[in-house]
């Protein structure tokens, strides 16, 4: 029973049928998994709560994936939380500009620890159609936050998003569940612009 379509995935020693053993050389993950971690990873992988974060066109395809035909709650992603406190992963759906980059970084850092990022759409992967000649688009989200799964497409079809989520689930099932160190944040030179709401209302 091949869990993921990963070429080098070698089925490990026979575990119980719904808690498969897996041996795959992972740079930062354990090599041979113990029972408890498999159980934890299996539980986490099948109940990932995405943060509602959509900036542009890919958000519509993400909503279509959440709607009735391509229902993603079959795989445990249904509960899209609005606050980062209760979210496990961010589906970065859409273009990220320099003004939004520091906000996205803050949202990522406000999420509790086992957290993952899925860069959905060409804009999030590499700046997409706005790679050339655009002065305000960050060329790829991995310059702001560490990304786990890249999903090309402009916008990617809902089935493509579902496949990317399954690849993310496979990745989670291979990681060391307990002592998973947070991934280092790439250095991003643009600091957060401080708010002055009084200025907004002084003019009027």
């Amino acid at each position, binding site marked *: 029973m091949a869990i993921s379509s990963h070429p080098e995935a070698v089925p490990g020693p026979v575990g119980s049928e719904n808690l498969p053993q897996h041996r795959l050389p992972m740079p930062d993950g354990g090599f041979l998994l113990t029972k408890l971690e498999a159980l934890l990873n299996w539980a986490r992988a099948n109940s990932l709560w995405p943060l509602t974060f959509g900036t542009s066109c890919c958000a519509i395809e993400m909503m279509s994936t959440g709607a009735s035909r391509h229902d993603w709650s079959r795989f445990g992603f249904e509960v899209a939380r609005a606050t980062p406190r209760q979210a496990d992963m961010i589906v970065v759906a859409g273009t990220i500009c320099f*003004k939004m980059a520091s906000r996205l970084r803050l949202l990522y850092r406000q999420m509790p620890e086992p957290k993952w990022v899925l860069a959905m759409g060409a804009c999030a992967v590499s700046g997409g159609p706005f790679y050339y*000649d655009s*002065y*305000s688009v960050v*060329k790829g989200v991995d310059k702001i936050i560490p990304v786990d799964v890249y999903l090309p497409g402009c916008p990617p079809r809902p089935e493509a998003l579902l496949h990317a989520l399954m690849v993310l689930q496979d990745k989670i099932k291979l990681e060391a569940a307990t002592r998973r160190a947070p991934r280092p944040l790439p250095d991003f030179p643009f600091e957060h*612009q401080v708010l002055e709401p009084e200025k907004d209302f002084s*003019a*009027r």
Partner: protein
Amino acid sequence: MSTVPASPAPAPAPNLDLKLAALRDEGQPILGPAAVFELSGKLPAFRIEATDLHAASRKLRDAGFDYLLLATATDHPAENRFEMVYVLTNFSDAREIALVTNVNRNDPVIETVSDIWETADWHEREVYDLFGIRFTNHPDLRRILLDDTWEGHPLRKDYADKVHNVIKRPY
């Protein structure tokens, strides 16, 4: 880099179709002799001086053009000028007239029309944000799209951005 002909011959093109001729005959008396009818392309426009922009807008507003479609600028660095364009139309038969003025590029200041059409408030803020043209007695002239800490005005032709790595298209 060839630029838009600054002021083509005011003589209207021979094949000026009826609709444009009607617009010209309607707009000319309202705006008076100061406005030069200019048909460059397909948009009927009246070129006026920046100083009497506000008066001309007021006259057109009272003459029934109650809908400012868009207010924007075009950068002509060769002739050291910004060309401000105000496209006016109305909500009944939607015929459109453009007011075109020139603003000196070194000290771009022009009077606001946001007291005539309130939609101009945000359009002018965007022009200030992306071109750097200041609008006198505008209620709240601040950047609207870019970060307040952004240096430079991106839509100028000579905008060079060292901070946000702008990758030029190779072909």
